[in-house]
């Protein structure tokens, strides 16, 4: 079985620091990490590999330094890594990223299962997974919390919904996006780290992938950021201490005044 895991390199903290004088963002102090949801995706692929046998390839689209994220995945136990990178891809939104990444995946040959994290913690869109599935014309299930069964040509999963979960089955090749509940990602082994240091990571460029340059990068992106701003911080209100009875009385009267209880 051939599994491809799509990952993204994201800033290690989502706490955006603001330069108070200029009101602009400071991002240089933040280290880059593998998007946490993608670690669950990598782990799930490795578990399938251990039980059923599989080749696990990781792929990312980003600038050259995104290879660090790929190396982290190799250190965890992935077999091969690929970087989709080209100046022409810069500025891609979720549509253009889905298109470009799907071309990258196509170039890897036969794929049975694609696993993505449910969303990246910087953009929080959750749109690239389904976008890739659509561009590759394969079935997909989002928000997977458990793989119940996987065979050569079918997969049955649990999809988390607001009020419970659905058990969904689909033929392979297919794509799933996974949530935190699915597993506990392993730490990289020493052996894995050694391998990650040495492994050659091929760069897949626009020319190699035969990407339509009108559908990628800034040019191919339907959406653009019109403006961005830091939301007004919610200020704290009253803070009180005292004996339990007083505190309980204060909370009770506050809530009853709000009239939220039906």
């Amino acid at each position, binding site marked *: 079985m051939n599994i491809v895991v799509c990952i993204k390199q994201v*800033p290690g*903290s*989502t706490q*955006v620091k603001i*330069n108070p004088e*200029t*009101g*602009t*963002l400071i*991002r*240089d102090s933040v280290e880059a990490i593998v998007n946490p949801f993608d670690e669950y995706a990598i782990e799930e692929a490795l578990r399938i590999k251990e039980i059923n046998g599989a080749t696990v390839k990781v792929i990312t689209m980003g*600038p050259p*330094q995104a290879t660090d994220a790929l190396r982290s995945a190799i250190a965890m136990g992935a077999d091969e890594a690929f970087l989709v990178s080209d*100046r022409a891809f*810069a*500025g891609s939104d979720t549509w253009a990223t*889905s298109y470009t990444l799907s071309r990258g995946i196509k170039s890897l040959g036969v794929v049975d299962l694609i696993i993505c994290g449910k969303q990246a*913690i910087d953009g*929080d869109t959750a749109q690239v*997974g*389904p*976008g890739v*599935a*659509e*561009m590759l014309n394969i*079935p997909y299930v989002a*928000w997977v919390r458990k793989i119940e069964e996987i065979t050569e040509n079918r997969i049955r999963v*649990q*999809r988390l919904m607001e009020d419970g979960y*659905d*058990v*969904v*089955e*689909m033929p392979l090749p*297919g794509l799933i996006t996974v949530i*935190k*509940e699915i597993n506990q990602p392993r730490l990289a082994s020493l052996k894995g780290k050694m391998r990650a240091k040495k492994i050659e990571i091929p760069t897949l460029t626009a020319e190699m992938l035969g990407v339509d340059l*009108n*559908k990628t990068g*800034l*040019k191919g992106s339907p*959406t*653009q950021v*019109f403006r*961005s701003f*830091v*939301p007004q911080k*919610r200020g704290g*209100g*009253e*803070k*009180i201490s005292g004996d339990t009875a007083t*505190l*309980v009385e204060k*909370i009770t009267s506050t809530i*009853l005044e*709000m009239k*939220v*209880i*039906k």
Partner: protein
Amino acid sequence: MGISVSLEKCIGCGLCVRSCAPKAISLVDKKAVIDLSACTMCGACVDACKRYEAITIAKENVGGCDVSLYANVAVFIEQGDGHIHGVSYEVLGEGRKLATALQEKLIAVVLGHDMKATAEELIKYGADKVVYFDGPDCKSFRDDTYAALVTRFIEEEKPAIVLAGGTAIGRSFLPKVAARVYGGLTADCTTLEVDPEKKLLLGTRPAFGGNLMATIIAPHHRPQLATVRHKVMKPAVFDASRTGEMVIHTVANGAVQERTTIVDIVKEIESTINIAEADIVVAGGRGMQSAENMKLLRDLAESLGGAVGASRAAVDNGWIAYSHQVGQTGKTVCPKLYIACGISGSVQHMAGMSSSEFIIAINSDSNADIFQIANLGIVGNALEIVPALTAAFKKARSVA
């Protein structure tokens, strides 16, 4: 096309260098120089250079379509067992406002089975037209069927704007639709506005776990799609006097090729009220100390008619199921009242609940970060206060 630095305007202050996550900018002879092989065109430097406007990103329009062919605002109506999801009324209410501002029609698109009367009632909730796809295959959510029928709807009706609730369903299939129709999709919006002259949808959404707000537009592509966060916008108002058009498409069995099969739908009994829907959320964190103590929260939630939430610490300790987790790696909630018990207030947790209308925090550490956003901060022991509150509300209820 692309990013450029005006050597005249650049004063070499270096703010852009600090704003650049991929470290693509350096100062050469006191001027900013951008390494195009590393630049991701994220626009952070353009923002950083607001004062001098030395950096610009020019966009050439190539992939777009003839936007003049598209008009009207469409709202996807989500249903389960024939009942319309609360978020759909909110999106309908918002859609009505946008349609009125644009002087266009509001169209509701419904997929379901045996629910014609319910679908038709959407006219009373503000729709000028209801397009109802009726068939057994539309009864419950299936990715391929929903994506195919909504795509068909878009191709036939050519709406300029398509909105849906930012639910598990909406956020699952709408990206597929956007991928097919080459539309610009903005996820999880908390504010929607329109520019009536340019016929533009401006969707504002939180990113970076709510630390940054971004307003997104799609000027050259149609439709402009957006999912909308639940509980943020006001629901549509029922008006019995409203009239409108009803269009019914009968969907024959197997008319859409569906590749996924729903084997089972499991409602989790543990979460009788789901936290995304609840008006009141009682949440516990590390300070609750044990699974046993989490039951105290359940009792309080029950006496208030609310749901139970939890911080990542409580979930990771195995005190409560993941489906209750609030925060960046869990759910985002915006109830009318959020009671945080023994939660210190990590950035990740606050990202999931800071848009709640009113926050009460109970924590024994008076320096806990959660107090910085709480409307009412209670410095005290949650393990004592929570059961006392339950008793107080039970009493208040029995008196009332």
